[in-house]
C-alpha cells in the first residue's frame, strides 16, 4: 500500500500518457471468432452442440462466416444414432436446429488437431490453405476464442488422441501478440478444470473465463430423452441464456462485467473463473468492454456528407485520366528508349556470342586438368596396390 502511495503520482502520470497515446488505438475494426470443439463420438454430442450454439450466436450478432473459424471433430447431424438426422439441438425443446442449412465448418473430423489449432492461431500455414480456413487478423481485430471438450489440469484433450497444454496455448497467444495479430482476446473455455487452462497465459490484452476450478468437473445441463444424450453443458447454457435474453442485437450495451456477474454456483454447479490481470486497465477496463465487442461485429462507421463532394470527385476523375494518359505516354517513351537500348545491347550480344563461339573450348581449363590428373592418379594407385599385393603374395607361395 505504501509503495503504491509513493509511486502513485508518477504511475498516474504515466498511465495518463499511455492512455492518451493508446486511447485511439483501442478501437477495433474487425471481429473474429475461433470456436473449437475437441471431442468426437456420439456421447459427446453436447460439446458439438455447445460450439454450434455459440456459432449461431456470433453469427446472429453479425460476425460473417469468413471471420468465424469453426472446428468440429465429428458430424453429429449425420451420425447413424441420431434420431433426428441432419439436425443438432442444444435444448430438449428442439426449437432451434443448430445445424440448419447455412453453416460453414472450416475444420472437420480428423483435421481438428492440436497442430492445426496452433497453426491456425499463429498462421503458420502453407500456401495451399484457403483464406476461409485462416485467421487473417491484425492489430485491430478482436478475437473470441471458445473451446470445449474434455480437459484436466492444464490440458485439453483433442479427439482422444492428443492434448493441448496450457503452456502451448499461452505460447501460441504470445506469438500472436508478438506479430500483432490481435487487439483484444476473449478466451472462453468450458471443460473440466477449465480455469487451469488459462492460468499459464502471459500475453497482454486477454480476458479469460472458464467454467470450473482445479479439481472441479464441468457438468452438463440436461439430456434429451429422444436424442438419448446430454445436449448442452451448464456453463455454455447460462452464457447462451444471457446472450439471448440480454444481448438481443448489436446495439446492446451490456458489458462483459454483466455477463460474468451472471455466473453463479447455483446455476453452473462449479466455480466459473475470470482472469482480468492481463488486460490493459485491469478488471475495471475489462468489465466495461461491451459483450458485442467480442460476440458481435460492430464498427465505427463513417457516414458520408452530402452530395457536394461530387464536383470534387469528378475533377479528381478527370485529373486521374489525364495523369494516367501522361504516365502511359511516359511509359511508352521509356519503353521505346529501352527498346532502342535493348536492340543495341542485343547487337552487342550477338557479336559477343559470335566471339565466344569462335573461341570455343572447355569452360574450365584448370579443373579439367585437375580432374584428369586425379583420375589418372587413382587408376595408377589402384594398379600399384594390386601389383604390390600380388608381389607380396607371390614369395609366400
Amino acid at each position: 500500500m505504501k509503495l503504491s502511495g509513493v509511486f502513485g503520482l508518477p504511475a498516474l502520470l504515466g498511465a495518463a500518457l499511455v492512455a492518451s497515446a493508446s486511447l485511439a488505438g483501442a478501437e477495433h475494426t474487425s471481429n473474429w471468432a475461433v470456436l473449437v470443439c475437441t471431442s468426437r463420438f456420439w456421447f459427446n454430442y453436447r460439446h458439438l452442440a455447445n460450439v454450434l450454439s455459440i456459432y449461431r450466436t456470433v453469427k446472429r450478432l453479425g460476425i460473417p462466416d469468413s471471420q468465424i473459424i469453426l472446428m468440429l471433430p465429428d458430424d453429429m447431424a449425420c451420425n447413424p444414432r441420431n434420431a433426428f438426422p441432419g439436425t443438432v439441438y442444444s435444448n430438449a425443446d428442439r426449437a432451434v436446429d443448430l445445424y440448419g442449412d447455412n453453416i460453414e465448418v472450416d475444420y472437420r473430423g480428423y483435421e481438428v488437431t492440436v497442430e492445426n489449432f496452433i497453426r491456425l492461431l499463429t498462421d503458420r500455414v502453407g500456401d495451399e490453405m484457403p483464406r476461409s480456413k485462416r485467421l487473417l487478423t491484425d492489430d485491430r481485430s478482436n478475437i473470441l476464442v471458445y473451446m470445449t471438450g474434455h480437459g484436466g489440469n492444464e490440458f485439453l484433450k483433442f479427439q482422444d488422441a492428443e492434448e493441448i497444454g496450457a503452456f502451448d496455448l499461452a505460447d501460441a497467444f504470445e506469438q500472436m501478440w508478438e506479430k500483432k495479430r490481435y487487439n483484444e482476446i476473449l478466451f472462453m473455455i468450458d471443460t473440466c478444470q477449465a480455469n487451469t487452462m488459462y492460468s499459464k497465459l502471459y500475453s497482454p490484452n486477454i480476458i479469460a473465463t472458464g467454467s470450473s476450478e482445479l479439481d472441479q468437473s464441468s457438468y452438463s445441463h440436461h439430456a434429451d430423452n429422444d436424442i438419448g444424450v446430454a445436449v448442452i453443458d451448464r456453463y455454455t447454457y447460462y452464457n447462451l441464456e444471457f446472450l439471448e435474453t440480454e444481448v438481443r442485437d448489436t446495439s446492446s450495451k451490456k458489458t462483459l462485467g454483466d455477463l460474468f456477474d451472471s455466473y453463479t454456483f447455483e446455476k453452473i454447479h462449479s466455480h466459473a473463473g475470470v482472469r482480468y490481470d492481463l488486460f490493459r486497465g485491469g478488471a475495471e477496463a475489462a468489465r466495461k468492454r461491451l459483450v458485442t465487442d467480442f460476440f458481435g461485429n460492430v464498427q465505427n462507421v463513417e457516414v458520408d456528407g452530402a452530395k457536394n463532394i461530387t464536383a470534387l470527385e469528378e475533377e479528381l476523375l478527370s485529373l486521374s485520366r489525364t495523369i494516367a494518359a501522361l504516365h502511359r505516354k511516359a511509359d511508352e517513351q521509356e519503353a521505346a528508349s529501352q527498346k532502342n537500348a535493348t536492340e543495341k545491347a542485343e547487337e552487342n550480344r550477338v557479336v559477343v556470342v559470335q566471339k565466344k563461339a569462335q573461341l570455343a573450348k572447355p569452360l574450365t581449363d584448370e579443373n579439367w586438368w585437375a580432374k584428369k590428373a586425379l583420375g589418372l592418379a587413382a587408376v595408377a594407385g589402384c594398379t600399384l596396390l594390386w601389383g604390390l599385393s600380388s608381389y607380396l603374395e607371390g614369395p609366400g607361395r
Partner: protein
Amino acid sequence: MTIQQPLDKGAAAADLQNSAAVAAPAATTSNGLPLPARKEPPPEKPSDVRRRSYIILSFWLIVLCLGLPIWWKTTTIYRADLPLQEMLDWADGKACRPVFPLRISIQANALQEQEAQNLLRLTQHALDDLNDFSGHHLRLQLAPPAASENRDHDHDSVLTIRLLPGETTTASFDPHAPVLDITYPPNTLPSPTSSSSSLATYVAGQLRSTFAEEQATISYLLSTNSIPSEHRPQGLSPDVADSLSKRTTRSLKYAPTYHLTFSLFTSGPLPSSWDIEDAIHQYMKPVLDVLSPIHNFTIDTQVQLYATPGVQNQVLNKEDLSSFINAAEWPLSPSIGGAPTINFVVFAGNQTIAVPPTQDSADSSGTAPAPHSWLIPQWGTVYLLSLPSDTAHLSSEALKQPLLTFTSHLLSLTGMPQSGSLPLRLSTLARIRSADLLLRASSTLGSLARLALALPSISIPSSVADGVSKTMAHLRLACETLGRPEGLAHARVAEAEAERAFFEKSMVGQLYFPDEHKIAVYLPLLGPVAVPLVMGLLNELKAWRKRRREAAEVAQGKKKE
C-alpha cells in the same frame, strides 16, 4: 537370491540337466541337506579377466561413441543461427534512421544564375529554420534551364517549383504534375547582399504547408512504432494525432494487390442487371490506373435479388448502419486468391439514413441533404440507392454517383493523404507506404528475434535464416533509397520476406514438454539398459582396484623378503 547360494556338486549336476529349474533343487538342497564347507571356485584366468574388461569397455564405447551422438543428433532441434542482435536493432530503429531527403527543384528561367542561387540559399535557410523534424528533409536544388524545356518535371525531384514573374505573390498547384507555380512581383527578389527575403520566406512557408501532412503522418508512424524518441519530432498536436489515428484506423494494411468486390443487392426482384463493367471503366478505372504503381487491383461483381439487410427499419440510425450488412446471408467474402477484399455494396431499396452527417457539413450548408453512403473502416462502402420500383436495369449513368463515392472511399481506404494536388498526394502515398512497410518489416524481425529467444524449443529451419538475411539486405537498400520509387519496391520485398520468415510453416509443433514428460518417456527405455551397464562398470572398477591392492601387497611382500 537362491541362485547365489553355494551349491554342492550333486545339485550342480542336477542343475546342468535342467537349468530351468535352478531354484527348486537349490532350495531343497539348502533346506534338506547340511551345507558342505564353502568351496571357492577355481581362480579366474587372467585372460578371462581381461576379456571381461574388454567386453564391458566395448559396451561403454558403443554407448558413448555411437549411442550418445545418435541420440543427441536425432533429438536436438535444429535452430539456424539468426543475427538476433541485428534484428532487434532493426526493430528498435537503431539500424536505420528513416530519413526522407526530398529533393525539390526550382525552375527560375527568368532569373539570373546568381540571383537564383541567392534565392535558393535564403529559401533553404528559411526552410531549415521552420523544420523541427530531422527525419524529413527538404533539399532545394536549381533545375538546369535546359532540362526544363523538354520536360516539365524530372523524376529525381519530388516537386518542381516554377518561379514566374507576375503581379502579386501567388502559389498554385499544377493539377497534372507535381509542380508548384509561384508568381512573384519583381521587387520581392532578394538583393545579393540581403540576409532575408519575403519571397524566400513565402516559398519556404508554401513548401512547409505542402508537406505538413506527410511529415505529420510519417512522424505518427514512427511514434506508434518503437523508434527512439530523438528521431521523432516533438510537437505533434493532439488533434492532429487524433485525426491521423482515425485515418490509420480507416485505411487497410498495405498489400500489393487488393481485390475489389462490387455487389448489387436488391430488396425485391428488380433491378436485376447493371452496367457495372462500363461504369467501372468510366468512373473508377482512371483512379485505379493512377494507383497502379503502388497497388494492383482485381475486380469481381455480383448481383443478388431479394436480399434482406441486417436492419429492416425504414430509417436507419447510426447504430443500425454497422449492422446493416447481413453477414450471415450475403456472400461477401469470395476468398478468391490471396488478396484482401474491399467491398463496395450498392443496396437498392427504399431505406434512408437519418443521421446528421458530420458536424462541419451540417454547419456549413444548414440543411444537409440526407447521406446515401457510409464507410466501414478497413472493409469498404455501402451505398443506398433508392430507385423507382420498376427499374429493371441500372445504366452506367445511374451508377455514376455510387461509383464516384466508392472511388473517393477507395482513396481513403488506401490511406491517401487529403491535401495537395493529386500527383503530389500519390507520391506522398508511396513514401508513407514505404515508411510503413519498412517499419512493419523491422518490427516483424524484432518479433522473430524475441520469439527465438523466448521459445528455446522451437525449431528454426535454415529457410528462416535465409529470409531474415534477405529481409535485412532489402531493408538496408530501402533505408538508403527511402523517398525514392525504389524505396517502395525494396520495402515491399523486405516486408514479404519478413512475413514469410516469421510464418515459416515448419516452425510449429507442440512446443512445450514438461520435465515429467521427458522422464516418463526415457525411463522405461533407458532404465533397464542402464542398470546392467552401470553395475558392470562398477563391479569392474571394484575388481580392478582390488587387483591393484593385491598387486601392491605382493610387491611389498616381495620387498620385505
